[in-house]
């Protein structure tokens, strides 16, 4: 009991003192997962739109495939990626194994099924008449698709948030393709892998500090999104760059 207490006190000291090692790990986590979510958005959102808005053969199979992938054990995905990135693997020539690049790509692939599955159901839940409506008002097909996407914006934002949460809390894939390297040129240690290692070597203070920060970061990001959604800010932002900002300025004038 006394040990837990002293480890917790040490953890708080580390956090409050702004320990460079800890904050280095934290910022790396944010950078890797941030990049991963951007990558996943770039390929996942058009994919969601395609699956949800187009009628094609095998649509149900594709949707079920992505739903199934959500439940794929991360060590299995980690193993597949490890084998692909390893020197003798099909992507070995890229030299990505045990680099930040491998982590970012690994996380992006891991979260794609979540992003796509939630995104598809958000778009599919939009009133099917919206597409026709936009077209009768003069929209081209792509403009009408954007109109549908805007209607689904809340669900889509939720898919991004859920995906980011999953990425930053991920251990299996990151450990297998990133290797938890600290020090040197290409550091790959992130919060989750560092916690796992610290527990193994009985550095509980460090592990607790990282654990607290991980939860705090997740809480803060989720809170910000909830508040912004409540204020309709993100929805407005998505509907037109700076629309809300412009409007508030106009009202002040």
């Amino acid at each position, binding site marked *: 009991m006394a040990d837990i207490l002293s480890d917790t006190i040490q953890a708080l000291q580390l956090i409050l003192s702004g320990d460079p090692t800890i904050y280095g790990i934290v910022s790396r986590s944010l950078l890797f997962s941030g990049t991963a979510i951007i990558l996943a958005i770039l390929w996942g959102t058009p994919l969601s739109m395609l699956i949800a808005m187009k009628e094609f053969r095998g649509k149900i199979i594709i949707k079920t495939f992505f739903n199934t992938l959500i439940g794929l054990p991360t060590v299995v995905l980690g193993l597949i990626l490890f084998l692909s990135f390893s020197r003798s693997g099909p992507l070995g020539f890229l030299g990505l194994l045990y680099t930040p690049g491998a982590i970012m790509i690994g996380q992006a692939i891991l979260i794609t099924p979540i992003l796509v599955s939630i995104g598809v159901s958000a778009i599919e839940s939009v009133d099917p*008449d919206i597409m026709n409506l936009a077209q009768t008002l003069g929209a081209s097909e792509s403009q009408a698709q954007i109109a549908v996407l*805007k209607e689904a914006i809340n669900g889509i934002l939720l898919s991004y948030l859920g995906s980011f949460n999953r990425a930053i809390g991920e251990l299996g894939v990151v450990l297998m393709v990133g290797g938890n390297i600290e020090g040197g040129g290409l550091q790959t240690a992130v919060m989750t892998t560092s916690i796992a290692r610290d527990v193994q070597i009985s550095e509980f203070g460090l592990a607790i500090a990282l654990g607290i920060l991980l939860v705090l970061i997740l809480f803060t990001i989720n809170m910000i999104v909830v508040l912004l959604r409540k204020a309709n800010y993100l929805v407005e932002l998505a509907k037109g760059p700076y629309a809300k900002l412009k409007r508030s300025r106009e009202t002040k004038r």
Partner: protein
Amino acid sequence: MTVNAELKDVTKTYGNKIVLDTVNLQIREGEILALLGPNGSGKTTILKILAFIENPSSGEVTFQGEKVNFKNTEKVRLQSTLVFQKTTVFGTSVYNNIAYGLKLRKMPKETRDREVKKGLELVKLEGFEKRNARKLSGGEQQRVAIARALVLKTKLLLLDEPTANLDPKNAGILEEVIDTVNRENKTTIVMATHNMFQAKKLPHRIALMDEGKITEVGSPAEVFGKLSKNLASFAAVDNTFTGTAKATAAGTSRVDVGNGVQIEVAAQRQGATVVFINPQDIILSKTAVKSSARNVFKGKITEITDLDSLVKLKVDVGKTFTVQITKQSFNEMGLCLNAEVFIAFKASSVQVI
């Protein structure tokens, strides 16, 4: 006479089902043309083809003198707009809803502001700009939908059952708007309706439709005057009944519309007759009430539809009548499906078509 749009031998099929069967129709510049026909007669499909969101399976469509290439409709679509029967609004403010089409046409902000304001004035929703469109009542949403189409000032305005499912107040406002834009802006309007009295009142010409075909085109006087077989098949339309009239000694006539229902009509008639009773003219009661009404029938409520401040009921008395009552009366009377009720209306409320 300038032609706004024309359908030549247009056929539309969905799988094996023929929805439009060699339709030929000319829409004249500046007119209001009503497509009158029962549900499923192909009215909406014609409107969708004229809005260029549906391709004909065969045949040709010309718009503003040019043949429409259905592979590339983006440009012509800017010149024609359709207001759907089922009101759909974007989940944003009324302003954004109405400004949507103007934005697509790259109108500057000042013009958009001005047009949205004018559009809202026209449909009597001044000051509604900032309201969330989805939180408005059904009737108000439909008025927003009309304003959203009107501000585009397209060469062709298509309305699919614009007043169906609206209470009389909202329906009245919309009919006034349709009339005003046609008269003042010379907008060419094609509207689908199965409301005979709207068809009699608003349009310059009527095209009667049945089973994917246009069976008659003419002025309301011509079409209604002929009382064609097709028009008689409209018995599916609310409170419109066909039957055989016999004059009574009291100077009225009695129309036998079948299933033991005989409707007393103030006018003297003989032979085949079509009658209509306005749903608002029917009094509904739970017990038989002694009154001056010559027509009293006992029946059961078979359908209840909630309109804004009104409730629309279908009452089966052998024939199905549509009755409109206020929501307050509906609640106070404690009505429900299958409840036994009496309907009553005066012989003078029965209109002979």
